[in-house]
């Protein structure tokens, strides 16, 4: 297997639909691909004790996070027959309704991408040191914990 260098997955602010659309378009030249699968994480307006979340501010231990993303990518390529894989996550403020994570996998065959995307999302949620401050409409906040 060829060596892949760690990539920086972090983007400041939300991930735009233009960015996602362009990523899809870039794969039209890769004609061995028969199936793509995409996961988009969107910031939800949770209501907690009568207050509504209006945004999440993301921070990360970036060195470790990039290394973990790299380990997860390598493990996913080992487990599944994928042609390519892209992972992006926001840092800074992402408002409710905006996209904070974009995971994109491609393979010659559909079954691989369904399994790979679920594996990837779970790995990112449990192994990557990313922290989220949920800011309410009245400017108070609480810290998000993945369940």
């Amino acid at each position, binding site marked *: 297997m060829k060596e892949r260098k760690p990539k920086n997955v972090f983007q400041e602010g939300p991930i735009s639909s233009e960015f996602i659309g362009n990523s899809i378009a870039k794969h039209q030249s890769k004609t061995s691909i028969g199936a793509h699968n995409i996961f988009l994480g969107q910031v939800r307006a949770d209501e907690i004790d009568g207050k509504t979340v209006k945004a999440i501010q993301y921070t990360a231990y970036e060195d470790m996070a990039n290394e*973990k993303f790299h380990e997860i990518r390598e493990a996913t390529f080992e487990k599944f027959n994928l042609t390519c894989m892209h992972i992006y996550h926001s840092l800074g403020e992402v408002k409710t309704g905006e996209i904070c994570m974009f995971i994109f996998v491609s393979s010659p065959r559909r079954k691989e991408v369904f399994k790979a995307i679920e594996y990837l999302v779970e790995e990112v949620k449990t192994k990557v040191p990313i*922290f989220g401050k949920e800011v309410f409409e009245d400017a108070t906040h609480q810290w998000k914990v993945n369940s």
Partner: protein
Amino acid sequence: MNLTIKYFGMLAEATQCQEEEFLFSQESVSDLLKMLFVKYPELEEKDFQVAQNNQIVSKDSKIETTEIALLPPFAGG
């Protein structure tokens, strides 16, 4: 040795800083935590993991690097 401690999320909020340096002569992560709990009693009630060399380590492991990170629960995705 000079040890850099990094705090994230709710832990940075509790300590009011994102990183600081200590001259530290003891060996284990748990010795370090004892010292930090004296300085920041609030930390003791928080749920967190400890990382060194970008890996999560147990609280009784030895300190083998000059940078230790205290990580609250993850919230990515």
